[in-house]
């Protein structure tokens, strides 16, 4: 019954416009601002559930089995297609497939939690904080729904503004440095993508993704475009060696900002590879797959070691995020190689793994950052050495934290296991050495995560501050417990998520084996 509603527009604009009453409530009436923000975020989440129910798995399945290949991006559902700029035929074109639906749900879900998290931990300029969060949410949803490259770019870049403000105003001591670095780094990445898109526009006369996926490009053009996209998305993911903004941004960002950054924003990089690099420049992606695979392995192994030596909890988790996101890029590009060598089922497993890894990392890293936020609100330090024996004073917190840590190492039964396992499975089919190196992360991930747990949670009570800690209040428990349920649910029963994404992934695999050489 909702299929004809402009649900996607509603999802994008509800939070953005919802920011206005939050701002009007003002920083002086902080409680009112918080309540409105929560209402808006919750309403957006509800709309996203409605979208899920209106989303028709049936059509997608039929297309996957489909006799005739209708082409990539043609099976998008809940489409809204309006002319935005007539002279350039830029369209306000939205639509979702299983991949976007999963990421939109992750966004709306996380945003509710972030608003709840901000309830206690943000004290100054509450209304502005909440408003920035809501605007950010709307823009991120826009990124996942846009089917017009220019529209995508506008959301993709527009996102930087609220995040810039979030880190800069509510961040830690070195927030100005971190936020400028964040902004300039990501802007640097994306402007080359813009030139690439303009070149594609010159070739095709449109920004429609469906058309861009079809256009024939010579090997040289593809190579240039591939690198333009690579810079943009590699910075966003972030991949080694352009990852250095992330630890700074994470450390200085307020808890909510860290959670959004880790849980959603990084996913946009992986999403970009799946939506732009693979469909538009498949041949160049194949040619340079070795490069991305190498960079991903370095991220997985080397950055894992870097995480091991961190003294700051947030920094440790930030590096662990980079390592985990390495799995995503690894999965995507290994799948391309597999698809090209005729192993379609292996390719599907790889991309499936990358997608599940993205969603799961969204829950886990979000939970980890939220946990650090819980500790930070009490102790006002993120240094590992200031903690020890937290389990003695905060048993409920410790339970959940250990669960998230286990998920972070990829313990079977948690969501962390599923994605990594599938990617490793695909990697072994591609090349046993790559598979072995990827699998190595399970050890190193366990090392840095468990060592973190040992130093922070277990042992004797380290000092008086720790001894005086109070366990989580209801609000914090609610957030972390919800995330724990999500982590376990996805770990034990990943099938629904897999089903959701089966069809678009099958389509993508079918598309990328066809060479576009012209």
């Amino acid at each position, binding site marked *: 019954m909702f299929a004809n509603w402009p649900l996607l527009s509603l999802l994008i604009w509800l939070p953005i416009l919802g920011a206005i009453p939050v701002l009007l409530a003002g920083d002086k009436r902080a409680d009112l601002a918080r309540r409105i923000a929560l209402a808006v975020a919750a309403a957006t989440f509800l709309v996203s559930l409605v979208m899920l129910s209106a989303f028709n798995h049936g059509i997608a399945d039929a297309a996957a089995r489909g006799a005739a290949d209708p082409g990539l991006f043609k099976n998008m559902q809940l489409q809204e297609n309006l002319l935005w*700029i007539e002279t350039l035929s830029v369209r306000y074109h939205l639509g979702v497939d299983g991949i976007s639906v999963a990421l939109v749900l992750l966004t709306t879900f996380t945003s509710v939690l972030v608003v709840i998290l901000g309830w206690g931990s943000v004290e100054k300029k509450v209304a502005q904080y909440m408003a920035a969060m809501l605007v950010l949410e709307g823009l991120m949803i826009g990124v996942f729904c846009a089917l017009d490259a220019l529209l995508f770019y*506008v959301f993709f870049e527009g996102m930087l503004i609220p995040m810039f403000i979030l880190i*800069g105003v509510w961040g830690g001591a070195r927030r100005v440095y971190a936020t400028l670095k964040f902004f*300039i780094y990501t802007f640097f990445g994306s402007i*080359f993508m813009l030139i690439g898109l*303009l070149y594609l*526009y*010159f070739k095709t006369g449109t920004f429609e993704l469906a058309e861009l996926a079809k256009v024939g490009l010579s090997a040289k053009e593809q190579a240039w475009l591939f690198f333009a996209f690579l810079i943009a998305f590699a910075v966003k993911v972030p991949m080694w060696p352009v990852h250095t903004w992330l630890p700074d941004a994470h450390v200085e960002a307020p808890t909510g900002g860290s959670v959004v950054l880790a849980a959603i924003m990084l996913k946009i990089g992986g999403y970009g590879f799946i939506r732009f690099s693979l469909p538009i420049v498949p041949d160049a992606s194949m040619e340079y797959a070795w490069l991305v695979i190498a960079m991903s392995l370095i991220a997985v192994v080397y950055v894992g070691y870097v995480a091991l030596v961190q003294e700051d909890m947030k920094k440790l988790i930030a590096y662990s995020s980079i390592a985990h996101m390495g799995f995503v890029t690894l999965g995507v590009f290994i799948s391309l190689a597999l698809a090209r060598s005729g192993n379609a089922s292996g390719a599907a497993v790889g991309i499936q793994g990358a997608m599940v890894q993205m969603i799961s990392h969204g829950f886990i890293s979000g939970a980890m950052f939220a946990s650090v936020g819980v500790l930070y609100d009490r102790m006002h330090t993120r240094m590992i050495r200031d903690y020890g024996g937290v389990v003695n004073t905060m048993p409920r917190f410790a339970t959940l934290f250990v669960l998230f840590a286990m998920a972070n190492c990829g313990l079977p039964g948690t969501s962390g296991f599923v994605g990594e396992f599938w990617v490793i499975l695909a990697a072994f089919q591609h090349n046993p050495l790559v598979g072995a190196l990827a699998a190595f992360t399970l050890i190193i991930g366990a090392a840095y995560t468990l060592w973190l747990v040992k130093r922070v949670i277990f042992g004797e009570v380290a000092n008086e501050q720790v001894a005086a800690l109070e366990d989580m209040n209801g609000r914090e428990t609610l957030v972390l417990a919800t995330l724990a349920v999500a982590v376990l649910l996805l770990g034990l029963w990943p099938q629904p998520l897999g089903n959701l994404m089966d069809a678009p992934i099958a389509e993508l695999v079918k598309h990328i084996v066809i060479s576009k050489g012209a």
Partner: protein
Amino acid sequence: MISLTDILTLLPESFLTLAICALLLIDLFLKPAQRSVTHYLAIIVLAVTGWLVLQHFGEPTAFGGMFVRDGIAAVLKVFVLLTTALVFVYARPYLRDRSLFVGEYYVLCLFAVLGMMLLVSAGNLVMIYLGLELLALSSYALVALNRDSPLSSEAAMKYFVLGALASGMLLYGMSMIYGAAGSLDLNTIHAVAATSTQRGLLLFGVVFVVVGIAFKFGAAPFHMWLPDVYQGAPTAVTVFIGSAPKLAAFGMAYRLLESGLDGLGGYWQLMLALLAVLSLAIGNIAAIMQSNLKRMLAYSTISHVGFLFLGLVNGQPEGYAAAMFYAISYALTAAAAFGIILLLSRAGFEAEEISDYKGLGQRAPWYAFLMALIMFSLAGVPPLFGFFGKLLVLKAVAVPGTLWLAVVGAVFAIIGIYYYLRVVKVMYFDEPDGEAVIAGPADAPMRAVLSVNALALLVLGLTWGPLYGWCAQAFGIVR
């Protein structure tokens, strides 16, 4: 012979001329306390002129091709008039506060507007020169408006000497072109430039003409006057010379280069490309070092001129439309940016140091928000207006052959981000020091118009289609 249709074609300009004379007379009989009458009359004059520009009467050309009335001229004139009206609204509190609230300001500005209107409608080298000089002479006098300020006088002197030099160059180039083509009429020159095989003399002229254009735009390496003039002039004047004349400069470049010297496109396009790269480099890098906001905006202007030139280098209608769109977006944004400086300044406090904006996010959240919009727009961050200007000019060069220019533009856009963000940083991330309250002399109309102006950057960012459509239509692009 001058016929009635000629007069009719020139009706907006004729009306403006008469109105200026009338205004000058009326102002004589006003007491200082009644000066607002001049202010409102000047705005009404601009509005009526704008209405006349949009009417369809008269012929496409007048006075034997001296004067051209086409879509391009109409778009540019409308925005010149609109920007000037904004300037008048923003300038009034500032002028009143410093006993500069005199009729001359309005009369000089209106004469400059008249010069710009003639300039963008020129069909003849003489017309270009006349329009340009009317604009320039009025601007020199405006810069020196505050004659008690040594900084102001110095800036005016510098502006005058260098401006005269540039006019000389332009005139010299024009004389060469006249020598080669045997006519001052742009259409005739166009025909000669397209067919002539003896190009030496013409090319010689083109070099000087391009230098003249670059000077008027403030493109590097002919930008030396610009930071000093922007900083030295009273802000109420800077807001004027920093906004509307960029539109006129675009019109002049288009008339001279495209209407006149299209046949030599290969040569001047390369020159413009080099000027663009230099302007982007010098403007963006020098702006980083500035601690004075007016000076920073001056260097940022230089970099924006570099972007605007990118639209011209391919000699395609799409590129011209993009450059015109860019000029419009820049003029509106610059007016708002200087408007904020005017809003925050008061007698004895110019609010022109970047550090004056410390903690503005707490002191005046609304104006800090507007300033942030302006800065993000200048930096070219979507979804703001400025981004789409950059998008269009980058699109014009992102074709095989000039792709490298798009990359250069992109690289300098990234560098440019830094100094715009620094203003946002100072406003939002730094704690206020000193006086916490904004007690500027700004009046209600100014506050309202400035808010609309800055918010328009966001609204136009979302709905820039019709405006670009208008620009594209003016250059005969149909889709």
